[in-house]
């Protein structure tokens, strides 16, 4: 089912949170709403599921205008950030609740619950209460509860925020698998970029109530429209160098660093620029050699992360397969991969 936010606005009292947002999520698509805390992600979700009423605009499910429909009539499944499991009910009762309030006979509920709990691999936990479950199990119960009523739209509000790294990894693939299998339209709210990139067909990046860019993960990663977007995606994060346009190249004043820029970048001489260099594009294998001193190093198992303070002050980050020959304080000369650099205007626009 397609979901369309048409010129949607929402304010609380005098606080305008969202103004004239238009967003379309295609049928069966999984879209991530990504953005910093307080940018309006949850607000958007709450409007879609009907807990808050928009102060302007319309919300359409397929071609049906649901703007004034109460939640109960929208047929949506929601996984809340805190799961919002009912602590006094068993897992089975939690999952069966949406069916029970529909008045479905107990026998049918049991069947449905069995089916869906199998899908999320918690069939063996049905008799427990939420307090007796681990975070990941709770999360799957919440997911099962959201799915059991065969919703038209699935909304996930930071469903993984409470999990530890390992569980997170597992749940990412699980949710995606289920969403694919059931072919449901889903919106995932998160502020974790890895989550957004790994799980979704498209990502919408929000900032202060507005959508800054909407694209596929790869597009978003490779072709960010602003420095904000570029900084938001990538782990370890991108580093920026500040400089000016000098003879068709990016130059950092008072330093020898020159990065030739593609001709497509039409900036007049002396314009202030920002050069984004992702850690994987600053390695021994690049084409523009730069020297500096290692100020920080950490092992992450199969890879090492280095912060390199360039001559002249600016910092570049590098990620490389594990090596043992570089330590903090060492002088290194590594190279920027000129094909990987992203060029931004001083105000953050991508050039």
């Amino acid at each position, binding site marked *: 089912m397609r979901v369309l936010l048409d010129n949607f606005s929402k304010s609380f009292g005098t606080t305008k949170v969202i103004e004239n947002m238009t967003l379309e999520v295609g049928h069966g698509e999984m879209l991530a709403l990504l953005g910093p805390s307080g940018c309006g992600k949850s607000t958007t979700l*709450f409007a879609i*599921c*009907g*807990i808050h009423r928009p102060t302007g605009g319309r919300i359409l499910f397929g071609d049906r205008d649901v703007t004034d429909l*109460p*939640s*109960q009539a*929208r047929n*949506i*499944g*929601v996984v*809340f*950030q*805190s*799961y*919002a499991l*009912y*602590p*006094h*009910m068993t897992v089975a009762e939690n999952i069966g*609740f*949406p069916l*029970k*309030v*529909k008045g479905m006979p107990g026998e049918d509920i049991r069947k449905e619950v069995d089916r869906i709990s199998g899908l999320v691999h918690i069939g063996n936990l049905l008799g427990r209460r939420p307090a007796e479950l681990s975070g990941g199990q709770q999360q799957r119960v919440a997911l099962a*509860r959201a799915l059991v*009523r065969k919703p038209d739209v699935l909304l996930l509000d930071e469903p993984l925020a409470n999990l530890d790294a390992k569980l997170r990894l597992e749940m990412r693939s699980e949710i995606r698998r289920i969403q694919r299998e059931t072919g449901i339209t889903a919106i995932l709210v998160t502020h974790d970029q890895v989550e957004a990139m790994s799980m979704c067909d498209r990502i919408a990046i929000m900032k202060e109530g507005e959508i800054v860019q909407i694209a596929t993960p790869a597009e978003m990663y490779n072709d960010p429209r602003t420095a904000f977007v570029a900084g938001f995606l990538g782990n370890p994060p991108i580093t920026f160098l500040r400089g000016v346009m000098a003879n068709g190249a990016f130059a950092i004043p008072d330093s020898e660093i020159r990065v030739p820029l593609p001709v497509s970048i039409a900036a007049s001489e002396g314009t202030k620029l920002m050069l984004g260099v992702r850690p994987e594009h600053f390695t021994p294998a690049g084409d523009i050699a730069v020297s500096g001193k290692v100020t920080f190093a950490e092992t992450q198992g199969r890879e090492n992360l280095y912060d390199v303070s360039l001559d002249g002050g600016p910092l570049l980050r590098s990620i490389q397969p594990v090596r043992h020959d570089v330590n903090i304080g060492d002088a290194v000369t590594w190279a920027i991969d000129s094909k990987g650099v992203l060029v931004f205007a001083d105000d953050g626009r991508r050039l």
Partner: protein
Amino acid sequence: MKSSRMLGLIMIAPAAIMILLFFLMPVVLTGVFSMTNMTTATGISGGAYQIAPHSLNDLKSTMPDIAEQMSQPRYTIDETGLKAVEGLGLDAGIATELRAKHMGEVFKTRREAERMIKGLDQGPSTTQVKQISEQFNRSVVNSRFSSRQELFTALDTLGFKLTDAQKDSIAEATYTGWNWTTENFSRIVSSPDMARVLFNTLLYVALVLVLFNTTYAMLLAIWTHYMPAAPATIFRSIWLLPRITPVVIYVLMWKWLAWDTGFISVLMGKFGYPPKNYLLDNAYNAWLFVILINGFIGASMGMLVFSSALKAIPKSQFFASEVDGASRWQQIRYIILPQMRWPILFVTCYQTLSLLASFNEILLSTRGGPGKATEVWSLAAYHTALNNYAGNLEYGLGAAMALVLVVIGIVLSLFYLRIFNYGTLVSRPLIED
């Protein structure tokens, strides 16, 4: 000793001492009182022996002569008395004149003796008259003796020859203090009204508790929960008013509503019904109002507890259930109520005990009437034992009646504490020092 334990003992000491002094010891003392016939007349701290005509009434049937003799006041002008008068250091002429003119005279009352003394030439002052007459008092009527020993010594000097058995009955009859007895309990058991009063009490506690202190309080909490903050606060304040209004005023407002000149009467008058006293018209009405009056006060505590418990349920659970398709009723039924077990238990327990002990509202509204229709145990205790128009409060009986209440309270508390799963209430400290 561990420092935290030491600190604990010190910090709990004030509460422990206060509770020991002003709760536990009084309760124990009340237990003791309940085994006595203590009244205003017997005093609290002990008694004396007083040969008063009233106290001799009982003896009149068993030993009429002695009783009669003892209860006669007698003032005899004799040598002993005159010696004593001389020792008072008054004008010497007084004794001389008495000896000369009145030796051997016997007066039946003190007043007569004093009239004589006043007529003496010396003209003693009133104070002196009293002093002098005292010296010739040859009876024990109305004197107080602080011990049995003193009483019988005095009787001895007056020439009473008494057997031990007689002494015992005299001592018993003339003792003014209280005695040990179990009579209070047998009085309670034998009183024709007590079963009825006990039933009233249970009815009262159960109805107010179930209808108002829990159910209606819950209703208030839920209603205000589904409201924006401002009206919710207003309604909560309105329902808190009965609790903070002095009970005399509060009950008066109900009377204003229910008396024959009250609001309901006037209103019904407009429809042609003659005014009547709706409050006391019949037992059913009285019960209705007793329950309303107490219920309106009692609802506020539950309302506060339930409201804050409701507030403690994460909002997301409400959102989730709405998204899951629950109607308002289903939300209440399946989400709110099941999670209110604890607060409901707490309120039930606390309010049961409060209700058992409360009677003021009933006292001021129906006084337990009409008839004894709305008399409850604590009110009966108050009525029979602690509110005596004629000034003789029956502390012993009152204590016994209160004790019954306490026993009921303890049984119920133990029952509730069990349900509360009391053991889980006190958890082991996590800092081990």
